[in-house]
């Protein structure tokens, strides 16, 4: 960042070999300049160019990858303090703990439960991201064994939590392929830990007793050649963590390099409701990783939904394509539901149509991804627009009747819609959750 496309272009090999995925070196340079690609994507950079571009174009918060293959998550790469300034980039990775003091069977069972923390929402799958294996036993051999079981069973990458280099080495010996995050280094052990992280090619979390110590440690670790660094300010009290997270992000945006890395936070509240609220603060305020101790689906559903909301792009409301959707193999007599193409609205309706067990067609009208009342207030969900969608979507060929169900909130439109479309209009319930009982009573063929 800060460099122009041309300045970057000068550093490239100019062979247009396409190995970076771009068609030309110039295109690649432009992509780097606008933050759409990182310099490392070009495998042919000279050492000097790599150094120059690496430090000059690095985003304020270094992107760090944890895990390998399909289990990989990226954290960092953030460039703003507030989501409304642009957007937040990489959602906070949520990690759930597994202690090595559990028996092997218990470890396997807990990992299974963590694997099950997967939720579907508005047509997408959301889940936790990491399993944090914690060396509570103090025994390197035991820790390695626990890590191995977790690595074999978990559908997620690992964090290895131990400040004992011997334990980390033992665990890395059997799990390094999965590129776990080592957590980690402190003032006393950082040389050994950095050595291990370098040797096994894994990212490293660094803990300072405060921000000053953290900055100097991060700098020393970087000087030893490691760049995949994650920061832990050592604070554990919620308000203090918030202050540190804010300070680290502000420092990073000011390009104070020693703090230009993503962060890791730990939730330690013994009250389990409080723990979720505490985690919520860290998700909202800048944590790259949040580690917590619960496998309750309710806890994670709430937290993941918060994360999803905060990390959506404020410029683009999530929308679905405006076309006829078929739920449960509908036929000629099946009901036709009208809604909007706001993802949240469409999927609420789709879930409830499915729950009714009566097959049906859903036609989301293109309202620029806004909800029913928002669209209506903004003049984007008019009888004319609905009629147009009925005519052009091909739904008329799929059904033999001419009856359409509209959202209850838009009852006022029914007369006009009937007039302009020629379809008979049924006003549905206000909430889509009313669809199952509505359809059983009102839909007779």
């Amino acid at each position: 960042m800060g460099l122009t496309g041309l300045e970057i272009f000068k550093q490239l090999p100019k062979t247009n070999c396409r190995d970076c995925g771009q068609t030309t070196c110039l295109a690649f340079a432009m992509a780097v300049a606008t933050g759409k690609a990182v310099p490392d994507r070009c495998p042919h950079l000279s050492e000097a160019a790599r150094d120059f571009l690496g430090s000059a174009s690095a985003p304020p918060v270094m992107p760090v990858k944890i895990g390998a293959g399909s289990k990989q998550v990226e954290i960092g790469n953030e460039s703003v303090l507030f989501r409304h300034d642009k957007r937040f980039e990489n959602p906070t990775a949520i990690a759930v703990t597994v202690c090595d003091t559990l028996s092997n069977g218990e470890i396997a069972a807990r990992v299974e439960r963590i694997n099950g923390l997967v939720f579907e929402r508005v047509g997408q799958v959301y889940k936790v991201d990491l399993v944090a294996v914690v060396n509570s036993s103090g025994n390197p051999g035991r820790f390695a064994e626990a890590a191995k079981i977790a690595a074999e069973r978990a559908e997620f990458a690992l964090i290895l939590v131990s400040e004992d280099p011997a334990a980390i080495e033992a665990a890395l010996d059997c799990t390094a392929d999965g590129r776990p995050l080592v957590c980690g280094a402190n003032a006393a052990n950082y040389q050994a830990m950095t050595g291990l992280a370098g040797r096994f090619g894994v990212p490293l979390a660094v803990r300072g007793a405060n921000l000053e110590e953290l900055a100097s440690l991060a700098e020393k670790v970087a000087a030893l050649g490691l760049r995949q660094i994650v920061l832990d300010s050592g604070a554990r009290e919620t308000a203090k963590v918030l202050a540190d997270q804010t300070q680290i992000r502000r420092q990073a945006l000011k390009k104070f390099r020693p703090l230009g890395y993503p962060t890791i936070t730990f939730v330690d509240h013994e009250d389990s409701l409080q723990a979720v609220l505490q985690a919520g603060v860290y998700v909202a305020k800048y944590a790259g990783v949040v580690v917590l101790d619960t496998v309750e689906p309710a806890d994670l559903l709430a937290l993941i939904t918060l994360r999803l909301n905060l990390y959506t792009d404020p410029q683009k409301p999530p929308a679905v394509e405006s076309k006829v959707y078929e739920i449960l193999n509908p036929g000629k007599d099946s009901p036709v539901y009208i809604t909007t193409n706001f993802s949240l609205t469409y999927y609420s309706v789709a879930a409830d149509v499915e729950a009714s067990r009566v097959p049906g067609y859903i036609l989301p009208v293109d309202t620029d991804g806004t909800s029913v009342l928002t669209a209506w207030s903004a003049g984007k969900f008019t009888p004319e627009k609905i009629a147009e969608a009925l005519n052009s979507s091909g739904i008329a060929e799929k059904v033999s009747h001419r009856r359409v169900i509209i959202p209850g909130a838009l009852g006022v439109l029914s007369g006009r819609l009937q007039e302009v479309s020629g379809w008979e209009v049924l006003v549905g319930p206000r909430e889509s959750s009313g669809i199952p009982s509505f359809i059983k009573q009102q839909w007779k063929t």
Partner: protein
Amino acid sequence: MAVAMVKERWPGRVMELVIGREPHAVKAGGESTLPFLHFEGEIPNRPLAALEVWDVEPEGWPETLAEAYPGVTRDPVAWAKMCEDCGADLICLRLAGAHPEGKNAGPAQAAETARAVAAAVNRPLIVIGCGVEEKDEEILPAVAGAIAGQNALLGCATMNNYKKITEACLSYGHGIIASTPLDINLAKQLNILINETGIPLDRIAFDPIVGPLGYGFEYAYSIIERARLSALSGDRMLATPVICFVGQEAWKTREARSEDGGGWGDQARRAILWEALTAAGLALAGGSIFVLSHPASLNAFKKHLAAMMKPFTC
């Protein structure tokens, strides 16, 4: 390594709004920094948490919520006392019974309910209408008179009905809630209009109409955050404390209501968390007054706020 702390020097601050009368008055707002950033400015008041009381028995409440108020949901006075015992900082009386499509209670009846509740509790009052603009401008003036001098917070005033409500608040010594749908410019405009009628800015709370987790939360979060930044940057017209009606929204969601969400975990826990985490999230954006529905969410939220307000050395 010395790290030069980045501290913003904000020229503005959030208005401080007093609700209720001594010795039971509470204060909202007054911050000179972003939420809970104790290292940077003053945070004289912790955010407030109110519980909702209805003048009529609520219909369609999920059992998890109704169960929290055994035997009192037909008696607003007993209900309000119970909320006071549960630790609510304020009582929010919702005159749902005035809704024209429901019981259609008139101004006299609404006023009587408000008077009875005010007489029964020490906690300061928020009184809101039924949400139908024409009806609210009819009943709220009567309510304002019935609890004259109590320094309650009345609402919700909108672009269409603020004049009569403002007038009543001025005459009888109450604060006012200005409500606009998720739009920072509209919020500012309504604050200006209300201010022009003679109500000082420190007598207004603004309601951005919040969405709960998963249902528009992010819009509310960003609008509240932007309003706080404007306030701190010196825009007095956006510096009124923010009130968030979280309970009514959180308990509408599928996540709070459905018993079996296919792997969503225990319903009661999920519902409480939905409400508490929505509130905690919006507090982090800059909300000052939170109206909640369930005593357990209130407890969790207040406990969380205590942790966020805990001073620490930096």
